[in-house]
């Protein structure tokens, strides 16, 4: 964990995130220090309310810690402005949320293109790259459907394609399989692991699902905002 920070995609030092004030103060993340290596495939698990989402949001520059520092790909997030954080999210992070990941007025391929276009990639390139990736996540032929015309699992695959499309340093997924049946969940996990291997993208995801946990190479268990175990397991 204390290795050269160049090998680490994200490093947290004594990070605390509190909600509310005095009598009702909740410490959702409590003095966590943690590093994740490049190319990692990390699962956060723990009971409801243990701070998984809060931790992912902090790493993903969607939230700011009450105390402590977060370094993402060599950059201190706590020192950045709103605009700069948006830029970090655009360039370095891919998000997969539990549900409603997609912009409803955009088709599948447009949703994938969206982040490239915001990053100023020329239209021709955006389209071909998005089509390629959608084929890779198994959605060939469905590119022009709107989210409302896709199943939950298909929507999550679009979200995965979008998360990795502009080669982010890190993909964060908060319970990506929670709304899926077990077969779809299994397929999505396979897909994420394949992409982790083939593209070398770092994944950090939270889950309740034993099956999902098992596919992770590193398991971090949270309870009451603290890390209570952190272990590596042989990948399958």
């Amino acid at each position: 964990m204390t290795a050269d920070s160049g090998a680490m995609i994200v490093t947290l030092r004594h990070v605390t995130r509190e909600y509310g004030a005095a009598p009702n103060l909740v410490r959702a993340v409590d003095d966590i220090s943690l590093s994740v290596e490049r190319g990692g495939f990390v699962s956060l698990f723990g009971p409801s309310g243990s701070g998984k989402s809060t931790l992912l949001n902090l790493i993903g520059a969607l939230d700011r810690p009450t105390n402590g520092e977060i370094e993402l790909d060599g950059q201190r997030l706590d020192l950045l402005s709103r605009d700069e954080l948006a830029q970090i999210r655009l360039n370095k992070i891919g998000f997969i949320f539990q549900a409603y990941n997609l912009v409803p007025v955009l088709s599948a391929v447009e949703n994938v293109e969206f982040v490239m276009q915001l990053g100023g990639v020329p239209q021709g390139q955006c389209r071909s790259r998005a089509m390629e990736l959608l084929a890779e996540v198994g959605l060939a032929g469905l590119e022009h459907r709107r989210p409302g015309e896709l199943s939950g699992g298909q929507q999550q695959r679009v979200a995965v394609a979008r998360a990795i499309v502009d080669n982010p340093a890190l993909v964060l997924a908060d319970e990506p399989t929670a709304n899926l049946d077990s077969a779809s969940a299994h397929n999505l996990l396979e897909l994420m692991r394949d992409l982790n291997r083939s593209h070398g993208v770092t994944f950090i995801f939270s889950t309740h699902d034993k099956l999902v946990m098992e596919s992770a190479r590193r398991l971090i268990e949270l309870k009451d905002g603290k890390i209570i175990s952190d272990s590596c397991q042989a990948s399958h």
Partner: protein
Amino acid sequence: MIDAQSWLVLWKLASRNVARNRRRTALTTLAVGLGVWTSVALAAFARGISGEMADNAIYDLTGHVQVHHPDYPQDPVVSNSIPDSSAKIMQALPPGVVLGSAARVRVPAVVRSEKKATGVTLVGIDPDAEHGLSFIGDGVISGRPIEGPDDQGIVIGQKLAEHLQTALGRRVVVMSQDVNGKLAERGFRITGIFDAELEATEKAFIFCGRGTAQQLLGLGAQISEISIVGQNRDGADAIVNAVQAAVPEAAVRSWRKAAPFADALLRVQNAFLKFWFLIVVIAVSFGLINTIFMSIFERAREFGLIQSLGMRPHNVIVQVALEAFLVLLGGMVIGNCGAWLTVRALSGGVDLSRFARGMEMMGVSRVVYPTILARDIITANLFVLVLCLLGSLYPAWKASRLPILEALHRTH
């Protein structure tokens, strides 16, 4: 700041979101359209009334441009006369600029019947020159009109005839001062009675042949005024300059100076219309801002999502403003077309005779022709576009400041 690619994305998001809730978009567009429509149509109606009023003042022996002795405007007496330089003036003006000019004798006088006497303005005219220039050249007359400069009869207004308790064919005496300051007096037979648009005009003027008047007043070939009518009111200032150059010794003035009341009313109206546009636009913008807030609230999660994906806050503002812009554009098209159709449908004139008694006092005709001015269309549309866009920036700014996480956790 925003590159071409981002514009493309923003445009796509904005246009699709506008098309999303068709009912709401249609209602908002209609509200904007109604605002533009009432603004432009009301302006056209007001312009019709005031234009008519100004034209009536001009038709009332004023003309677009007047030439006088320098002292005549302050003291319109017989001795402040000028030679008839009509020919010289017409030569100095480029062809087509003016419709015509009329030289007149115009002096204060008293007219007396057997029963009553009253102060009037005696106008000696050449009827041929007055056609199309003033009401007396075209006016409705019972009896016969003045037939030439040396006509010996007199034509008075309907109301004046009633007031003097006299009638066609009866005699009246006209008294004035001649050029030497002596009393000039002459009996006339009433050969015609005119009916003017305004009662005040019928009471104010009596007409005789110009030569007859010159003889009565000892004027020789001198006259009191030359009245020139151009193509329209706005061309008057150019004519003033050209005429002044041709007759530098005379006082040349446009209708704006000669009929200051009409001019002042037009100016007040300009200010009033701007004020009216402002009121309408404020009402419309409140509706628009409210609608935008509703639509932002419903889509809070989406705003959270696109920002979590890395859309910058100012792009969110631009997206919402673009949505407002699309609605405004649609509303402006509807409003302007509606106004144009309304004015076209009323191009035959709106009959105000039911209200004419009150209106006539202000110099307004019984029939009003709505007139759309380019400046009113531009002002009304600019007001709507600029003020409503500015108004939309507030909800847009709010949307860009929605806390991302809170927005993401909103359930549908």
